């Protein structure tokens, strides 16, 4: 089983040193991608995380041939992109940033036209409409759809050709909680059916729930990539939150033992803790009885905020371009966990 899985692993998406600078008519230039790398292996549900404006959409657009990259090498399903995209387009389903549809057409008609253009049998249209929950609304004009319904229609259009690779840019955009859950289930089903999924999002909890691998981007560069579990354990600093009556005195005691301690209003956090029992023992020995001792396991959100430098700070309003540029002011390369598939 392990061998088979290993053999089945081949890169479905490879991006190497991708660069893109948008130039405006007034001569302005905005660096959207600054040497970005990413690898997605077959069978992964790969999360593509980054703050607003970090270059996720630009990456996907470049990969799909909608935007011309200035430099870099890309391959999709083993073919060079964008030059050889026509050869694999039939195996790749994609939605890129809130897709727009022709308002006067019904949902069903929109899909039929795409199916016609792509040589997909029309029965498939009914299947995907059903799959995304639009079966009964398929004969209404797209104009009258809610944002979430349009998003579903977009996903339906991506599923139409039964893709091996599904690329979804912010699919949860505009979806209601039920829609988000359905989208999650849908992605799980697809993953189970061996479809490789690349899903971009800034909703971290979502990614953590559905993705097995993740690539984090900030200001056009990769900050980190790897299996979600490894990323999280890599950020596990063995921290515990401790609540105790005289928490400042208790913190002094722990600090005296050489452990890093941060004191907060009504508790303190201790790091590098191998065995929490040591804290209760030590403090108990001094007559201080612990009320709470909670491990602070990192979630993707804190990793993300920390890596991209977008963690809110009291009293400041972070601007979209305040995100960290990897390898620049803050060198984050030390924390990069390269995604070596195990």
């Amino acid at each position, binding site marked *: 089983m392990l061998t088979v899985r290993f053999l089945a692993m081949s890169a479905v998406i490879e991006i190497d040193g991708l660069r893109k600078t948008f130039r405006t008519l007034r001569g302005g230039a905005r660096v959207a991608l600054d040497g970005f790398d990413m690898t997605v292996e077959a069978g992964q549900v790969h999360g593509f995380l980054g703050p607003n404006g970090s270059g996720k959409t630009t990456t996907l657009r470049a990969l*799909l041939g909608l935007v011309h990259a200035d430099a870099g090498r890309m391959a999709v399903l083993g073919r060079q992109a964008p030059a050889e995209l026509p050869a694999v387009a039939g195996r790749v389903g994609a939605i890129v940033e809130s897709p727009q549809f*022709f308002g006067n057409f019904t949902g069903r008609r929109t899909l039929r036209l795409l199916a016609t253009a*792509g040589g997909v049998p029309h029965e498939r249209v009914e299947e995907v409409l059903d799959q995304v929950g639009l079966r009964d609304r398929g004969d209404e004009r797209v104009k009258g759809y809610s944002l979430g319904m349009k998003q579903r229609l977009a996903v339906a259009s991506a599923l139409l050709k039964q893709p091996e690779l599904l690329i979804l840019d912010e699919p949860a955009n505009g979806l209601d909680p039920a829609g988000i859950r359905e989208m999650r289930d849908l992605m799980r089903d697809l993953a189970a059916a061996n479809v490789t999924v690349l899903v971009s999002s800034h909703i971290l909890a979502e990614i953590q729930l559905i993705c097995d691998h993740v690539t984090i981007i900030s200001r056009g560069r990769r900050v980190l990539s790897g299996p979600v579990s490894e990323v999280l354990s890599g950020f596990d600093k063995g921290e515990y939150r401790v609540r105790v009556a005289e928490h400042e005195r208790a913190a002094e005691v722990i600090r005296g033992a050489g452990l890093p301690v941060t004191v907060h209003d009504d508790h303190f956090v201790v790091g590098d803790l191998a065995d929490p029992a040591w804290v209760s023992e030590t403090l108990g020995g001094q007559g201080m009885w612990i009320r709470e001792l909670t491990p602070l396991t990192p979630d993707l959100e804190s990793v993300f905020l920390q890596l991209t430098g977008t963690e809110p700070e009291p009293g400041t309003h972070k601007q979209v371009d305040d995100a960290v540029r990897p390898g620049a002011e803050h060198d984050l390369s030390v924390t990069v966990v390269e995604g070596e598939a195990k």
Partner: protein
Amino acid sequence: MNLVRAELSRLLARRFTQLMLILLVGSFVVTIATMVGSSHRPTAAEWERAEIQVVQEESRQEQMRELCESGQGTTDFCQTLSERKPRLEDYLFGVFVFEREIGNLVYFMVAFVALFGFLVAASFVGAELNSGGMTNLLLWRPQRLTVLGTKLGTLLASVLAVAVVATVGYIASFWVIAQVNGLPGDVDAEFWGDLAMLVVRGLLLVLGAAALGFCLATLGRHTAAAMGVVAGYAIVWEVGARIVMEVVEAGRTETYMLSTYLGAWMGGRVTFYDGPCIGSFEDCSYSLTWAHGLIVLTALVAVVAVAAFANFRRRDLA
């Protein structure tokens, strides 16, 4: 082939296309109805009066001819004399004479269908670029030139089909009016040949207008861009520059105007008098023929089309 089918249904499903088709048909119906209302079969009395007037005119011309032969009268006048045989239709008023009037009516129709082609073409590509329809299609067919080319080809074929049907219907309607409520006039083989050539030139013009609208909207990424360019050209060049050239007395102003080539193409030949000037009319005038029109207009469409396709091939799509 699938792409053509998809493009065709997109084109036909567009509200704008449908609206323009209705306007086109509506304007033709109004024109034809007006003609039906304003024409009648000549009465016996009218025939009689016309016959008398023809005889009178013939004898007047006979006198003139004698005058010319005896060496009196200007040469210009004498030259045109023989071409002006008086005809019955000249003296029948309120009677639609097919042979006389169909030419101008076809001009009107071509102008209308060309405008139709231009607007439908511009909005077809403009709306698709803006609605993301093009992006969607390119995700399915990542071949930009093929996709844009198919779109243009489908559009031109559709516009041509509409234009052909419109032309045939239009001319046939007037032919019927002439038979029922007017006069066909002197319709010989030469007349039909000329009319056919006019129609062919008109259809080519319609195709050119549609291609131009399509390519301008592609370049400008917007339906309005195509209309803006045409309006801008008309105001800045055809009006503004013409005034400037006349003030500085630049010679042969009309050779710099696209409208001239349009007229030359449709009319076969246009002649302008470049005064003030001393000498005969020939010395002071210049002509442009349909061939000039063909070259200039084809070059214009070709340049814009190449620019549009080249730009679209490399462009970043939203």
